[in-house]
């Protein structure tokens, strides 16, 4: 797409055919259409194939630890809430190692846009099961097949009253681009779980497998109804809904922190006289 060249980053180290390429393309186009300049955008990521994402998109980047992108992104957002902050990671990153942060980022409703590249496998570490791997999937590390229930990020997010909950699919470019734009436009915490074929390690959930099953939720679905959303979120199997599952209007965390109601924290540097006067007053309290 014209205009998207400015997001051109490093050369991706993904496998040829990896679903991440499609996601990246949709992403760049969405950014282009939203007219977000690279230098005004910050992407925080974890470790995994998906975690390399911000290196391949020109933007401010904090590529942190496996599983820890949400707290870092929270810090960034609180320090400079005028800047769009995106978190990107894999299913292992966000639902495995980083599961606790997901719960609490949603509770805060901090205005981070989270995109999970959900390939239902640990890609970078070469094919172990992830929380979203389907029951029974056999890997070298799960010789008896996956015994745990499959993690359902949509249902959990709805249960947490997450303010924007959606599922995309790497194989449906236009739909995905639309979702990304919608998520970016939403105030508060947004979770977009993106089904992403891993052509190397996930031989179950392939392009073909997904393509046969995914369908866009239609207008009959009311994403503002929490119970309807929950029912929709439970769909998985022969038919897998993509689109906005749930949405609400909870005030965002950054709106609610009184300290930054006037201006961004990073712009509130106290120096010289004003700092000294305050300190002198504080010292009095010690008497």
């Amino acid at each position: 797409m014209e205009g998207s060249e400015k997001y051109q980053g490093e050369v991706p180290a993904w496998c040829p055919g990896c679903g991440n390429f499609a996601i990246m393309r949709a992403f760049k186009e969405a950014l282009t259409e939203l007219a977000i300049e690279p230098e005004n955008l910050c992407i925080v990521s974890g470790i995994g194939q998906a975690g390399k994402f911000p290196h391949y998109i020109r933007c401010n980047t904090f590529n942190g630890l496996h599983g820890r992108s949400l707290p870092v992104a929270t810090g960034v957002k609180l320090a400079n809430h005028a800047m769009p902050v995106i978190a990107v990671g894999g299913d292992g990153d966000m639902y495995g190692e980083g599961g606790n942060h997901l719960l609490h980022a949603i509770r805060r409703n901090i205005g981070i846009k989270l995109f999970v590249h959900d390939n239902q496998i640990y890609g970078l570490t070469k094919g172990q099961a992830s929380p979203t791997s389907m029951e029974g999937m056999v890997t070298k590390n799960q010789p008896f097949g996956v015994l745990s229930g499959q993690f359902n990020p949509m249902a959990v997010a709805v249960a947490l009253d997450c303010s924007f909950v959606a599922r995309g699919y790497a194989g449906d470019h236009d739909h995905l681009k639309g979702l990304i734009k919608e998520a970016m436009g939403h105030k508060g915490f947004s979770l977009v779980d993106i089904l992403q074929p891993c052509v190397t390690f996930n031989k179950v959930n392939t392009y073909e497998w997904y393509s046969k099953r995914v369908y866009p939720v239609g207008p009959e679905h009311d994403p503002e109804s929490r119970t309807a959303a929950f029912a929709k979120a439970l769909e998985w199997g022969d038919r897998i809904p993509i689109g906005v599952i749930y949405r609400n209007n909870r005030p965002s965390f950054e709106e609610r922190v009184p300290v930054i109601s006037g201006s961004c924290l990073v712009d509130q540097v106290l120096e010289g006289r004003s700092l000294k006067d305050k300190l002198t007053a504080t010292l009095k309290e010690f008497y």
Partner: protein
Amino acid sequence: MDYTIKIGGQAGQGIQTIGDVLAKVFSRSGYHVFTDQDYESRVRGGHNFYRIRLSDTHVYAPRASVDILAAFDRESIADYGKELAGSGIIVYDSSMLGERYEGPQMLDVPFTALAAESGAGRIAANTVAIGAILGMLGFPLEPLFDILKDGLKRKDNETLENNRKAAGAGYEYSVQNCTRCEFEALSAGEPKMLVGGNEAIGFGAVAAGCKFYAAYPMTPSTGIMLFVAGKAKDYGIIVEQAEDEIAAINMALGASFAGVPSMTGTSGGGFALMTEGLSLAAMTETPIVVALAQRPGPATGLPTRTEQGDLMMVLHAGHGEFPRVIFAPGDPGQAVRLTAKAFNMALKYQIPAFVLTDQYLADTRWTLDSIQIEGLTVPNYRAGNERLDTMEQYKRHAFTPDGVSLFGMPGKTRHLVVTDSDEHNEAGHLIEDSLTRKKMVEKRLFLKLEDIRKEIGPPILLGHGSPDTVLISWGSTYGVVREAMEAMPAGKKVAMLHFSELYPLPGNERLDYLALLRGAGRTVCVENNATGQFAGLMRTECGHEVSDSVLRYDGRPFMVEELVEELRGRI
């Protein structure tokens, strides 16, 4: 004049409030005050004490010998009675304890009955007790009234008046009945500040410009967060209680990356969880200050007790090799200064900096004559957009002669700020090649360390000019070692070296302490741990082998008398 008042009772009886009020009376009256606390890991019941030492000259540590024991339960009398000085008095309320104790040292004051009579109700029994103690000491009551007024600000005049009456009743009662009370209140100086260890760290942070504090509650560090939270509105600071310690340090790193001075605080167990994040700070060269208040481990250990057991952990925490700075203040004054300095070092060198304390120091309060604000404020090391925007290109991790790259703020310049937990190139993008790797190690580690070393202040040297014996202390043992040194027999040539800036170890340029140590026949390291961790650090870092270690590792701090005795046997 040097009196110790010990208030003993169960959690929930308000002995901390009594102690705080009394300490404030004394500090406002211009005395030198030192308080410490001992409590169990529970909210009600158990057996606690609050100890106040007051004097007309400096005091730096607790003494075991008690002059006034205020007993709010029977255990206090059973456990602490033996600590009573020859002229000491035990004050208690026989109706409260359900027992009358006989003996010349016992003063039975009907706290509850007098409170009820005063009109303030039985709830004011503690106020009666405070009045009674002041009466025993022969102190004026006015400072107390002022404090009651401050404390009751929002309550009505009647309550205040009743409380005054209650205090007065206790006062009168003890003045009349304590015939053996022979305390004399020497005249004192100007009002003093009374500052606790945690407050001091909090104040140092605020003064240094801390804008973001993320932490998870953990005794004994929680007080730092509470202090900063109390100042959040006034100074414009975000204080966020994270879901866990991992989140806490990562949030602080995110905020720091975005451009604001950030901090976290915890105790050993919480810090153990942060160590991966510490390594992240190092790799991304993101400044961070970590306050670590030690308590006895391993694991949950003794959550409300004290130990200096985490020095080695802090020194080597985090995988991989990277520089760090560790400060371990010996008193609240040092805590203020070194916390601010920790911010300075962290921001200037883009490294993690530690303030290492322990439960003992965190829960002590000391009088200070003043705190100099000037030395505390920290320059703005961030590269503003004006500066960056005029540059043709910007690389977050650019190689420079001193290893420090310009710290750009994302979203505040036309350039991109990119960093990575993977090994990266100057631009912050991940690399695989060995050459870049090598240069980056040298940048982060060797180049910076050289300059950092130069900024480390010398140890504090006190005592004899050319000593036979040098006592070595670090962190919270400062006060007790100082008092013990001063109490050594006159003929002995004893000095002490206190290390509060302890990693990297200071050079010998400003104070040739190595020569001093070599010159002394005996060097004794006093530590509140079982393995002599600082002695080990000295051995590794400067090759000095201490001749002797005095170690305490039962979760309790050293007492002056105990240390004096211990040292007398060895010197």
